[in-house]
């Protein structure tokens, strides 16, 4: 398992868990990012925010928060 921030563009991963705090993650869950959901990394340029696609919608995520989202490669 590793942080979402390290996943390259064009990869598909599964969200495993959130590391730390509560508040902001609750909002992410409401936005469709619940553990178990499939994430497609649309943009990750290893600097600045990422763009991910989840359940058909696109979400921009800051690098800081992407470091706290742990994912696993989809087998």
């Amino acid at each position, binding site marked *: 398992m590793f942080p979402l921030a390290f996943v390259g563009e064009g990869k598909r991963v599964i969200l495993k868990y959130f590391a730390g705090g509560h*508040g*902001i993650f609750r*909002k*992410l*869950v409401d936005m469709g990012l619940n*553990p178990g959901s499939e994430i497609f990394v649309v943009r990750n340029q290893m600097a*600045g925010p990422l763009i991910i696609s989840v359940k058909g*919608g696109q979400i921009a995520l800051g690098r*800081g928060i992407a470091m706290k989202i742990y994912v696993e490669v989809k087998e």
Partner: protein
Amino acid sequence: MKEVVIALIGNPNTGKTTIFNALTGLRQHIGNWPGVTVEKKEGELEHKGIKFRVVDLPGVYGLTAYSIDEKIARNFIVQEKPKVVVDIIDASNLERNLYLALQLLEIGANVVIALNKIDISEEKGYNVNPEKLEELLGVPVVPTIASKGEGIDKLKERIAKSLDKKPPIVEYPNFEPYIKKLIKVLEKDEKLTRQYNLRWLAIKLLEEDSDVRAIIEKSKMRDDVLKTLIDVFNDLHKKYDDIELALADERYKIISEIAKKAVTKKEERITFTEMLDEVFTHKYLGIPVFFSLMWMAFKFTFDVSAPFSDIIDAFFGWLGGVVGSGIGNDALASLLRDGILAGLGSVLVFLPPIAFLFLVFSWLEDSGYMARAAFVMDRVMHRFGLHGKSVVPMIMGFGCNVPAIMATRTLEDEKDRILTILINPLMSCSARLPVYALFAGAFFMGREGTVITSMYILGILLALILAWLFRGFIFKGQPSHFVMELPPYNKPNWRTIFGVTWTRTEKFLKKAGTIIFATMIIVWLLSVTGPSGYLGSNALESGELLAKSWVATIGRALEPIFKPFGWDWKAGVALFFGFLAKEVVVGTMGILYGVGEESLPYALASSSAFTPVAAFAFMAFVLIYVPCVATIGVIKQEAGTKWALFALLYELLLAYLVALVIVLMGGALL
């Protein structure tokens, strides 16, 4: 006849306001980024003899009451109990949108679903079957394309028909026994039973919702409820680490079952949104593209609007001639000619660039690019202690700071929000444009473009520097996390774009007709009268007479303050009244420089009141010195009196400082 209350709710940017406007005939602000509507708006609708009060709520992803907008939305539904809750669902993003729908059903709301943006889901290559969805969810589903007005009539009909429907109950298999157990205790309190949907209270108790917890604290069954809750938690914790997440998971499982049955995916397609994003959010290309688009927006504003300004100018010139020769009474003729035509006329000449500015920015907002601007600028903003989302209010500030400051509500973090509010007045709004255009035209012939651009850039630079300072000294810490949905790009919806442009232009015209008009009359009155009484209309042509007027008295009182810059007292008077609205600066100059045959730029240039350096310093001063009254009002409303005063003070100081630096540097260099 009693009004029936219906609420519009949905995820951000699904088209709620578009539907609201279509239902009520109003013209509320629509834009293609999440978080356009920040307060609830109301309107009326009549359908088949029934009167409805329609409420447009801010967009929310869930009803956990995590941020202000979620609280507003949830409280409205729980407390006001609207007869029908219309959930606007983005068909191109069905699963995520259904999450809110399930939560609405939990509350026991009488839900009607508007399945909006079916054109976009088509483009993406899927097909949502409304009948199937209706059958699976047990609530009416109406497909719509709100931006084209399709499906609205059908929606009205279904709303009217479902007024007294009983909403279906969604069951969560893994939690049913626990929910039932809690309901059994809760229902012993009649007051709760009457006011709330017990099922919802039970679910929220499982999620440890603090507001619901507070409700229970007041109940007479408090002790029993809490005891049962502890039992339930003991059981549940054996199975789940985090019950809230487990419940979310349960909801998403149900949703995914529904989606599987109601959605047919035709094929994978590459949408033009994906193609544009590949470039517009590119690490290196993104920022140059952003600046190129900004340049194009301003080029359009200034160059294309020019002939229309000339037409208005010519019209006022002609009118002045007619009034001057046609009216006998000296005072009346002077009021019309020197006060209203010269004053208000000087401001109205700028109607075209202002309207064009609104037009191009409305288009930008509608296009979907704003969210990308926030994305690409996030890194830059971060360096100055701002949040990526601060970019949206900053860009809106080019139009008008008042809605821009309202738009900061999309920032969840209080520090980020207040910081973004404080620097917003430095973004040069449309009211300052007349001042730049006037002075650049008078003193920098041939280099107007560069000079005006430099004002905008000065404003942006100061905003960034101050944000950095404020972050370092007042709002210590890091900007909060960046999370933002990126909506698909829109082909221009001209109806929306012109609607928004017109609403904003209308506001400017109203301002011209009220506050600017009134101030012009006051300035005129104070110019033709003085401590010795009425001076006669000649006061505005002869310097000697004008020196005896009230404005001169005010001007001379202010003169020492502006001495270092080398501006004459008339400039001081213009700045003094400009506090009400910045356009007034130009209007006041129009009156005081007695614009007759010549137009104002020539009158100014030939008056020798300003050197080019002094003129440049004056422009900078007008950019910075104080936000207009309306802006201060909205800062007070959004951030409190303390911060409004702070903004006022720091801007006055900063303006003085910057103007001084310009004059000194200009003196040293030239």
